[in-house]
């Protein structure tokens, strides 16, 4: 049975509804249309007229891990889909219900349970936002340096479900490094804790299987994080974020490698803007300080740490960038642009149709992981794909590319192409063309030896088709793990094509307990 085409009233057994109310109290079992419609969306563009397809049957707001576990146990017993929702800020539809069911919204679980100033850890509920956590850590001189573009609104639990990217990750690591351990409700309702070994606050263990990574980045298909213990760092004394202009892309491309390989201890990352990105900022971002026309690429280098170390390391980074042909853009641009990195990522609210008309547009970002040497080729092919898309459908706009160093070596990069989409005009034909383009974009990344996604996940339409190709035998293991842990396919069914795991069993959940795992359903 495929997902119904309309968002009808809740279609859950009355008994389940009553049981949920018993567990959570009536105030935290939401069935109103607004509660359900507003938990059907994430920022990734989707045809507005198809919104009702993704509306869940109801929403629950558990306040504790035990309540969450009980909700999952009930859903498992009734074979009703569960969709975990944290910030709902992800870009691969992880929090989007594809088969109705129950959205488990964890935002109420946002307590700071412990700040351990000896072990430098914080233990928190999954519903806490990093900015709010850092407000609580400030009096202790500590930070939690997980810094995605969505820093002011994404939540710790969602960072676990996505295995997210930190913009300063080359200095402190990404979510997978910063989350030491976490508590998780399995699809059967059992509560476990995973980390490096059994210690809540240890960062390296060889004891047993390393389960932490298995339960990060699963997009809600393997469980719901209900508590996390996080690694803290001393709040850095100094920040340096010099921006450099280049007259050609190749010099800028060379520069980021040199910066990342310089062995500067306080280096937190480098960002490469290509000429499409510079053109786009010049054209449509009024907050961007325009650069002369001969500027065709930009590089930003970022350093955090003790003041004397940042001063020394910064001098070296400045020298490297200048030697590579970069022109320093000055303190105002450098400090302002970096300080605005979170606010800017969703703006400037509009783009251009192929005819040049200004239109309100949503932002979509493809985010492959690509090795440094392949960046120029991937870039050329990606822009060509978007250009072909634009030729057919003028509602798409090419907003250029960013590349971010992944690790302090600069070997591989988060490689991002931003596409503006006039979502109000996104009809079925344009959507189909977009899905094809996404598949092509993913294919380019794989052909160049990369991964489809460095940070968002890869379970949206289009790209998800190629995940078995990317992972090979590993994908088969994914299916086996999924089926072993979630025998009735209740956890976020439909994601990553994992219904394949159930193709010979007829098991699985869906409206009326139907066989969402049935064959012939395609790869959605």
């Amino acid at each position: 049975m495929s997902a119904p085409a309309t968002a009808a009233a809740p279609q859950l057994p009355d008994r389940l509804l009553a049981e949920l109310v018993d567990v959570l109290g009536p105030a935290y079992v939401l069935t109103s249309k607004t509660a359900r419609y507003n938990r059907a969306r994430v920022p990734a563009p989707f045809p507005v007229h198809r919104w009702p397809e993704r509306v869940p049957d109801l929403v629950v707001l558990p306040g504790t891990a035990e309540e969450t576990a009980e909700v999952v146990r009930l859903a498992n017993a009734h074979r009703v889909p569960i969709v975990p929702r944290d910030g709902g800020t992800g870009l691969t539809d992880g929090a989007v219900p594809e088969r109705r069911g129950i959205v488990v919204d964890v935002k109420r679980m946002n307590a700071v349970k412990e700040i351990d100033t000896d072990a430098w850890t914080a233990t928190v509920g999954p519903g806490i936002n990093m900015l709010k956590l850092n407000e609580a850590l400030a009096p202790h001189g500590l930070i939690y340096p997980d810094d995605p573009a969505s820093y002011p609104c994404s939540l710790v639990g969602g960072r676990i479900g996505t295995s997210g990217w930190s913009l300063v990750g080359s200095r402190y690591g990404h979510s997978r490094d910063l989350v030491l351990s976490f508590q998780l409700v399995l699809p059967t309702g059992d509560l476990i804790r995973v980390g490096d070994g059994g210690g809540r606050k240890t960062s390296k263990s060889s004891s047993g299987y390393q389960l932490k990574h298995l339960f990060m980045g699963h997009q809600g298909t393997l469980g719901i994080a209900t508590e996390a213990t996080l690694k803290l760092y001393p709040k850095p004394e100094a920040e340096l974020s010099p921006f450099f202009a280049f007259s050609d892309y190749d010099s800028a491309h060379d520069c980021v490698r040199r910066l990342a390989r310089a062995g500067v201890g306080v280096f937190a990352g480098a960002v490469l803007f290509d000429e499409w990105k510079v053109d786009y900022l010049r054209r449509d971002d009024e907050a961007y300080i325009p650069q002369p026309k001969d500027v065709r690429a930009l590089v930003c280098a970022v350093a955090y740490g003790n003041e004397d170390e940042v001063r020394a390391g910064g001098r070296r980074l400045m020298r490297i960038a200048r030697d590579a042909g970069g022109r320093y853009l000055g303190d105002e641009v450098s400090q302002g642009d970096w300080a605005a990195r979170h606010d800017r990522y969703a703006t400037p609210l509009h783009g251009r149709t192929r005819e040049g008309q200004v239109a309100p547009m949503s932002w979509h970002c493809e985010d492959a992981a690509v090795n440094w040497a392949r960046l120029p080729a991937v870039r050329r092919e990606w822009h060509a794909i978007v250009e072909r898309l634009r030729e057919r459908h003028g509602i798409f706009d090419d907003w250029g590319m960013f590349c971010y160093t992944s690790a302090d070596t600069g070997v591989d990069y988060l490689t991002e192409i931003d596409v503006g989409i006039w979502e109000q005009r996104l009809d079925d034909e344009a959507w189909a063309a977009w899905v094809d383009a996404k598949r092509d974009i993913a294919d380019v990344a794989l052909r160049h030896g990369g991964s489809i996604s460095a940070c968002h996940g890869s379970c949206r339409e289009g790209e998800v088709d190629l995940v078995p190709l990317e992972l090979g035998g590993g994908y088969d293991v994914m299916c086996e793990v999924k089926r072993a842990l979630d025998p009735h396919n209740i956890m976020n069914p439909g994601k990553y094509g994992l219904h394949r795991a159930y193709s010979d069993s007829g098991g699985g959940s869906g409206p009326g307990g139907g066989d969402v795992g049935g064959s012939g359903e395609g790869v959605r």
Partner: protein
Amino acid sequence: MTDRDPGTDSGPDSRTAETSQPSPVTAEFIEDWRNAAYNCFSSGHKFCREVCPVMQETRNESWTPTAFHANVVAMEQGELSVEDVAEDYVNCTQCGACELRCPNTLFTGDFYRFRTRTVDLVKQMRALAVDNGVHQSGYRRWNLLTDERGHEPVLGATPVSQEHVRDWADGLDLPVGGETVLFVDCEAAFYRTSLPRAVARLLRLAGVEFGLMREQWCCGGPAAEMGYREQSRRFAEHNLADWRASGTRRVLVLDPHDYITFTEDYPAYFGEDFDIEVVLVVELLARLVDEGKLVPSVPVERTVTYHDPCRLNKRKGVWEEPRRILRAIPGLTFHDVDRVTQWSYCSGAGGGLPVEKPELTAAISGTRMRRAAELNVDTLVSACPWSERPLSEAGEEHAIDVVDLHELLAESCGFDVYTGPGAGPAAAGGDGR
């Protein structure tokens, strides 16, 4: 926190029937708001969420600025009706934090003079609900009583009336009418009477000539905030007529809520015809202190922090003058929290929230007071009478006094603010705005 009872949701058929042909007023609303709503929907990044005082307490994504905009998109699509959404819009104090924190405001604001207008959207959606006959029981009762009495029912079971609207000024011998009048909001006129009394004495001390209105009614702002537009306009017309009849050219306003009403609602009602100068008392007092016309010289031995009233700081950008006054008062130890950090602070007392959800107002005030308690202060100073009642209640737990800035200045200028006629909140158990 409440949600509609499980199982009472109308099915898709009734929804379609309701929304396939929206009322003309609904269609007009959707046309007015569709692009603004889409500007938020298309961004969808929710930076507003963690600064929203309601969201910070309830953690309910249905009650966020993002949802308030997305609902309009869903209405345009015929998926939701005003009946479906109306109740959710109760959950807003109209503090304006979300507008400031919106990346769209921050990044296109300068160039396009663009600002996300969530507060206006909430007001207009509430008005749309009323226009479609969808009422919230608390709002309806509150506005009915206001309409009957000319003033908000701030004293609960104790009726307020025109007869008593100037009682706070007993013994001060203030004239009626004149070129400049002092407008005193309902909460201050009937409940926190020590506040207008302090203001009147300070103004007189500094030589500012002013009178009181001949017949002052509620400013009409609360009715506008809760969606009762026609009533709001009627009250505005009355007050303007009263000013005109007494030759008033200038209105002094001590309440930030009134300041919003007079500088935003009245010009919208009357256009060019509204030629009354509106003066915010706290700005005037700061100037009088600067000019040496008021000299705070009596030490006030308190350790204080300042609560930025939302309508001053977030809605009007007034944050500097109150701090200037505080710094001029001898004896105070002042632990300031900067105005941007305070974007996410609120008393919960605005936008009609306490009328429908007093428990949520109390929770928001409780959070504000816990933040004050972390500073080890004995006093929280506010400059908004509406915030002071719930904050005072929340302060009891921490033994933190809530003092009004105007009153504090009066005390330092030698007035006995807290005893005698009009001292302190009138003894009556009412529910605040």
